[in-house]
C-alpha cells in the first residue's frame, strides 16, 4: 500500500529531527551564534558541509538549533490549542443550546480571517518574538480543533450506545469523558498531526516576514529570510533551511495520512 511505507518514513524523519532538536547543543559542530565574518557565505566545505551564512555562522548548526524552535513551537501550539479546542468542542457539541451557538459564532468570526492574517495582525501588534507567535497561533489553532470535535460529537452523541449511556443514570461529564471522547480521538490525532505541520509552516512564515524569531536566531524562517537577501550570490543559504522545513512538514503529512488510514479504514481510498 502506498501509504503505509511512507508513514514509517515520515515517522523516521520526525524522529531524526526530534533528536537533532533535543541534542542540538551537544551534537551541533559549532555554536549557532558564532559569527566568522571572514568566512561569510562560503560554500559547503569539509568543516562546514552546509557552508556558512551571511554572518559566517555554520548553517548546519543553525539548522539543528532551528529544529528545536520549529518542533517545540509546533508541538506546544498544537497541545495547548488542542486541549482548548477539544474541551470547547466536546461541551458545545454535547450540550448544544446557546453555549453552542455562541461558540459557533465566535468560530465563524475567527474563521473569517484567512489563515495567517490574524496571526500576522496579532504578532505585529504584540511585537515580533517567539512567545507572541505561540500565542497568536494558539488563538487561531483551537478553532479548527473545536470545529472538528464539535462535528464528531454531534454525530457520535446520536449513536445508540450514547443513548444507552444516557439512560444508565451516569453523569453527563462521565458520558463525555468515558464514552464520547475515546470515540472521537482518532480524527483528533490525525488533525493534530496535520496541525503540527501547519504550525511549523506558519512559524517559519512569520519569521520569514520578520515577525517571528528576530534575525540572527537559529530559526529556519529567519534563515530563509536572510537567504533571500543573498539569493543571487549564495543560493545555498536558502536551499538547506527550505529543505529542512519541507522534510519535516512532509513527514508530518505522511504520518497524518497514514494514521487516518489506520484509524478509519473506509477512508483508505483517499
Amino acid at each position: 500500500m502506498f501509504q503505509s511505507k511512507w508513514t514509517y518514513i515520515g515517522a523516521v524523519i520526525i524522529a531524526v529531527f526530534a533528536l537533532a532538536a533535543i541534542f542540538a547543543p551537544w551534537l551541533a559542530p559549532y555554536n549557532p551564534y558564532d559569527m566568522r565574518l571572514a568566512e561569510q557565505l562560503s560554500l559547503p566545505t569539509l568543516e562546514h558541509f552546509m557552508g556558512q551564512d551571511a554572518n559566517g555562522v555554520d548553517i548546519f548548526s543553525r539548522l539543528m538549533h532551528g529544529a528545536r524552535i520549529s518542533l517545540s513551537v509546533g508541538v506546544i501550539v498544537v497541545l495547548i490549542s488542542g486541549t482548548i479546542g477539544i474541551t470547547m468542542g466536546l461541551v458545545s457539541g454535547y450540550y448544544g443550546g446557546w453555549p453552542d451557538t455562541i461558540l459557533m459564532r465566535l468560530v465563524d468570526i475567527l474563521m473569517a480571517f484567512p489563515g495567517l492574517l490574524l496571526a500576522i495582525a496579532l504578532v505585529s501588534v504584540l511585537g515580533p518574538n517567539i512567545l507572541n507567535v505561540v500565542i497568536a497561533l494558539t488563538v487561531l489553532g483551537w478553532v479548527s480543533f473545536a470545529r472538528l470535535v464539535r462535528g464528531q460529537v454531534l454525530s457520535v452523541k446520536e449513536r445508540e450506545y450514547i443513548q444507552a449511556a444516557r439512560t444508565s443514570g451516569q453523569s453527563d461529564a462521565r458520558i463525555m469523558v468515558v464514552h464520547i471522547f475515546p470515540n472521537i480521538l482518532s480524527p483528533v490525532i490525525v488533525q493534530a498531526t496535520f496541525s503540527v505541520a501547519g504550525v511549523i509552516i506558519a512559524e517559519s512564515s512569520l519569521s520569514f516576514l520578520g515577525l517571528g524569531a528576530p534575525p540572527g536566531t537559529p530559526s529556519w524562517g529567519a534563515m530563509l529570510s536572510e537567504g533571500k537577501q543573498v539569493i543571487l550570490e549564495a543560493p545555498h543559504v536558502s536551499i538547506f533551511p527550505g529543505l529542512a522545513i519541507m522534510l519535516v512538514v512532509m513527514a508530518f503529512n505522511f504520518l497524518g495520512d497514514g494514521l487516518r488510514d489506520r484509524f478509519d479504514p473506509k477512508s483508505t481510498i483517499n
Partner: protein
Amino acid sequence: MLLYIIRRLLLLIFVLFGVVTLVFMLIHMIPGDPVDIMLGDHAIAADRKLLTENLGLNQPIHLQYASYMAGILRGNLGISIHSKRPVTDEILERFPASVELMFGAMVVALIMALPLGIISALKPYGIIDNSSMLISFLGISIPNFWLGPLLIILFSIQLDWLPINERGGIEHLILPSITLGTAMAAMLSRMIRASLLEVLNEEYVRNARAKGLPERKVILKHALRNALIPVITIIGLQVGVLLSGAIITEAIFDWPGLGSLLLDAIYSRNYPLVQGCILFIATIYVLVNLLTDLTYAWVDPRVRLE
C-alpha cells in the same frame, strides 16, 4: 432557497460586525502608548497631538468604537500616518494587483488539480495516482516562501526566462502564481480524488451503468457532477489560504498588492493602514465564503429546495 440566503446574509452581517470589533481591538492591544510606538519617541508634540486626535485616542473607548464604526459604514477607514492619505484610497490602489495574482494562482491550481485529481481517482494506485500523490505531498509541504526563491533561482537566474520582480505583463505573473497556487493545487487534487472515489462507489453510478449508459457519460454526467459539489466549498476555503499566502508571495516577488501594503504598514508601524488592510482582506474572504455557500446551495438541489 430564499430562507437559506436570508439566514446566510444575517450571519454575514453578524460575522462582519465581529470582524470589525476584533480589528478595532487590535490597536488597543498594543503594549504601552500606541502613539509612541507609531511615531517613535523623537516625534514632535504637534504630530503627536494630531495623531492622537486623528485616531480619537483621547476619547473614551466606547466613543472611539462608535466613531470607528460610523467611519466604516461611510467607507472611511481613517488616515494613513505617513502618507496622510485616506486608508481606503491606498487599499483600492493596490487591490487590483492582488486580484490579478489571486486569479493567476487560482488558474494554476485548477489547471493542475482538476486533471490530476480526476485521473488519479479513475485509475487508483496507477502511476499517475502515485506520482500525483507524491506531487501533492510536495505541494503541501514546500512552504511558498521557499518555493518562490527556488523558482527565481531556476527560471530567472539560471535560465533567465522570466523577470524577477515588479508587476508587468503575463510573464511577470507566472512565477508568483505558481508559487501561490501550488499549495492549493496539491490540496485540491487530493480532495477531488477523494470525493470522486467516494462517488464512484455510490449505487447511482452502478445504476447508471446498469442503465447501459456509455462509461464516458456515467463518469461525466453522473459521477463527476456529484463529486464536484463538495469541492466547491473546499475551493472557497482554499481562497483563504491564497489570501494569506499572497502576503508572503507578494513579499518575495515585490508584487504591489494588498499583502505587501500590509507588510509595509506593519514594518512602518502605520496601524490605521494595518487595521484597514486586515479588515478589507477579511471582508473579501467572508464575501467569497458567502459566494461559495450560495453556489453550493444552488448546485445541490437537496439544499436549494430545502
